[in-house]
């Protein structure tokens, strides 16, 4: 297996995540896109680790941290979504435009 096949897959996922982040209106969906990006990062880390084979498995440790942080962020994000939804009865980002000028 080539390292690059993983990296390119990760790049593709990352780019898809960006696309989703830019086009989705629903905040939950935006969060999903971000999860894609983070998953791509994890693929990168694990793939590198399988080449580098560091004694402390740094890549894998890193990815565990990434997963944890991602989980925390999902929690934060959903909390914010709930709050906004309660006030606005909508979870669409493009209605957040109070502060334009």
């Amino acid at each position, binding site marked *: 297996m080539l390292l690059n096949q993983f990296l390119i897959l990760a790049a593709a996922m990352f780019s898809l995540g960006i696309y989703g982040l830019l086009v989705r209106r629903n905040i939950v969906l935006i969060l999903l896109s971000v999860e894609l990006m983070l998953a791509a990062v994890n693929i990168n880390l694990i793939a590198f680790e399988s080449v580098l084979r560091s004694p402390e498995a740094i890549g894998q440790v890193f990815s565990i941290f990434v997963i944890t942080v991602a989980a925390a962020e999902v929690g934060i994000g959903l909390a914010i979504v709930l709050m906004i939804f309660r006030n606005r009865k909508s979870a669409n*980002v493009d209605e957040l435009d109070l502060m334009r000028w």
Partner: protein
Amino acid sequence: MATEAEQAVEAGITGGFWVDNAGIVLILPLVAFLLILAFGKRMKNNGAELAIGALAVNSVWATVLFVMNMTSGVLGQTTFEIARIGSDLVFELGWVVDGLSIMMYFLVSVVGLIVFIYAVGYMHGDVRVDWFFAAFSLFAGSMLILVGAPNLIQLIIGWEGVGLASYFLIGFYWEDMANVNAGNKAFMVNRLADIGLMLGAIILGLAIGTFDFAEMDLAAAEHVESLGAVAVVGGALLFFGAMGKSAQFPLHIWLPDAMAGPTPVSALMHAATMVTAGVYLMGRVFPLFEYLAAEIRPWMVAIGAITLFAIGFLALVADDIKRVLAYSTVSQLGYMMTAVAAGGYTAGLFHLFTHAFFKALLFLGAGSVIHAVHSNNMSDMGGLRKQMPRTYWTFVVGTLALAGIIPFSGFWSKDEILATLGFEGYTAVMVIAIAGAFVTAFYMTRAVALTFFGDYKGHGQPHESPAIMTVPLVALAIPSILFGLFNVPGWHIPGIGNFSEWLAVRVVPMGDHHPEAIDLALAGSGLLAAVLGIVVGWVIWGKDRETQAERDRFDIPVLYPLLHNKYYIDDLADGITAGTMGPLARFTNWVNDYVIDGVVNGVAIMTRGLGSFVYGVVDQRGVDGVIHGLGAGADGAGSALRKWQTGRIQQYAASFVAGALVLIVLFVFVI
């Protein structure tokens, strides 16, 4: 360096108490000025006492010096340093005692004293009398500082002081704007000329290495022609300065207007102070022109000649008696300047000396008349010889002196000038000068005839002025008659010599010519011109008519308008100043407000505009625009508003990504 001058002076004759403390003469009137300012209002005669007292002491002092100089020659110089830059640029104040300055001390003090006394009567009951005497004292004091100056710097101080005092006095009745304007005109013309004085002083001072007159004289005598063009330029500039004060053509325009002040002011201004300053300066730096800057002398002579001849004619059409005298003064100053410029140091200054007395006399006489008839215009006068005999007789004495009738003083001094011109080879100018004598006699006859002969044309009943005014007239009439004898060619008054000798008491010899015998032909033609002037004048104006205007007919076409409009020089000057300064000033202000400030404000406005752009378009809308740029054409205008409403956060996010991508691409592929 100052010592060198002092050594030179010491090499001459010096003398004791009166010389060493001659500075008193310079200071007293100024002290009087300050005291009158402070206490004048509370004094009985509004401070006239102080002014007269100061000049009385001065007169005594100056007379003593004058007499000392007659008998033995007096030379002295005292200076003290007021500033020193580095080792050799030194500014000093002090006083000079030599023939020239003693003559001026005497003149200013004595004539001044007489005029002051006269003024007590003349100004009685007028407004601001204290201020009048204060400014009058300042006037005399500044003149004394000027004539006592041992160097150019002090001369400039006095020079400007005279100008300042004249500004105050000409605009004495400042409630009327016309008077204020006359004062402004005098000040500005003089100030313009002062450029010459200042720059000339700087150039000569730096070129020769000193501002001290004695040293300059020595240096001038030593390095003959070694300075070349610098000396010529400097000399020309100095002459330009002198032209202003001494009202030489075409800078004479301020002087007739300067009649706006009280008559005693005019008397003093035209006699001893102010206008004589220029001639005095030329005399003071005479060696410079003698040795270093002789090239410009013909030009100076030319200007003097124009002045003496052309301006005299203007007196023929003036109705204001003081204006007649003023034009006459300008003309006489032309004589003096011509003489000095032609190399007649003694001749010019002698005429200055005699002229001071009879011109003061004439002005005071005119003042006496004006005082009586409450008008300056000769059309309001006539026949006053009966009502005002003392004024009349003294005025006639002055007129004869001015016209140059033997043996009045004016004859001798004018003769000396003619002789000098002849000797120096300025024959044409000499002819002009003789013609000038005719003109002088001509217009003076007119003035006397219109004022004192015929019937009275004015209002009220004029009567003779009080003694305090007529006694000074008499006091001036005597020297007007006699002082010409001081310098009769070939006559050395036993024990005291003559005026030339007195005036020659200087650090260096003046190198001028003094005829040892009367040139009868010359004197005769001068006298003849004067007599002719009187006769022709009497023929024209001697007869009385119904009105003065009828009597005073001088409406020759072309000539009359020309003279009446003062050769249009005033108009020209006014036109030039009004036509240039006003627009120029307004233009400058416009440049300031709209161009320079416009740039400043423009930068401010542009920065704020840029702020709006950056904030409104780039920061808040730009990403939007980029993202939606492609679809913009497809969507109708109606949905444009909706487009702005979409995806704010996504715009921000897109800018993130786009920014990063652009940077990466930039750095990977470009740099």
